[in-house]
């Protein structure tokens, strides 16, 4: 698994697609697929943070669902915005979303073979 993070509109998906055009891959935008779906394909999940938000809003447990997804798709590429670098939100749900997303990314980064941080369309390999 590979994790790509960075701020809003930094060209993360383009970076992933540019880096390895031969590999292709199926892009899921803000969603995951079933554990048995798309086996053997390179699955790119874009806007993972949006999926986390929707999962939390629906009362789900994003940590468990992501762990299951990664187990079923060990070669996936996960792309997420970094959302924790701001003022603590007043709204409790916003705070929860921000903190849970941060911890999920820490966990994923720990497991990932590679972590890339993209800024201005340029990727820096940080792991």
């Amino acid at each position, binding site marked *: 698994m590979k*994790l790509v*993070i960075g*701020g*809003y509109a930094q060209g993360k998906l383009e970076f992933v697609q540019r880096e390895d055009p031969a590999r292709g891959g199926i892009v899921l935008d803000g969603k995951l697929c079933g554990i048995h779906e798309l086996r053997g394909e390179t699955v790119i999940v874009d806007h993972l943070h949006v999926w986390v938000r929707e999962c939390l809003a629906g009362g789900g447990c994003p940590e468990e669902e992501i762990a299951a997804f990664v187990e079923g798709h060990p070669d996936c590429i996960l792309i997420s915005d*970094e*959302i*924790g*670098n*701001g*003022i*603590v939100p007043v709204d*409790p749900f916003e*705070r929860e979303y*921000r*903190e*849970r*997303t*941060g*911890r999920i*990314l*820490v*966990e*994923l*980064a*720990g497991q990932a073979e590679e*972590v890339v*941080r993209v800024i201005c369309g340029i990727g820096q390999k*940080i*792991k």
Partner: protein
Amino acid sequence: MMVLVVGGSGSGKSAYAEQCLARLSAGRKKYYLATMQVFDREGREKVERHRKLRAGKGFLTIEQPASICRALEKMEAGSAALLECMSNLTANEMFSEDPPRHWEAVTDQIVRETGLLNRGLESLVIVTNNVFEDGILYDDTTMEYRKALGSVNERLAAMADRVVEVVVGIPLIVKERN
């Protein structure tokens, strides 16, 4: 040795700062300077989570929500301390009065007191927050607070021997004094 650790919410900066202090504190007393004031259940849960993270690691906790250099009175000279965190300390100092104190006065006080604290210790690891990149224009008071913390971070970074940004749990060295 002074280390400044900066990161966003849920970035893993606390866990890293602890490891960092453990490496620097070999054989010395280790203190945890807690700056957060608890007002509600969420605050209690946060404190509890951090306590669990520190459990069994030999930290002595000192609650010091303001006037940070006064923590020196409660510590053995030449010890090691982890100060967590500047964003709370700055808020506590700034909003201790109504209307809030001017950001420059707050910054000057915090930088001066942290300097004193550092001189009384063998190692000091400071956790601070990146609250600067959400692109939102807040009310004047929040913008002043951001200015204060930004300025505190900048001046502490100038003072520090090492500055580390923690991103998704990964430490990135921003400054290292040779």
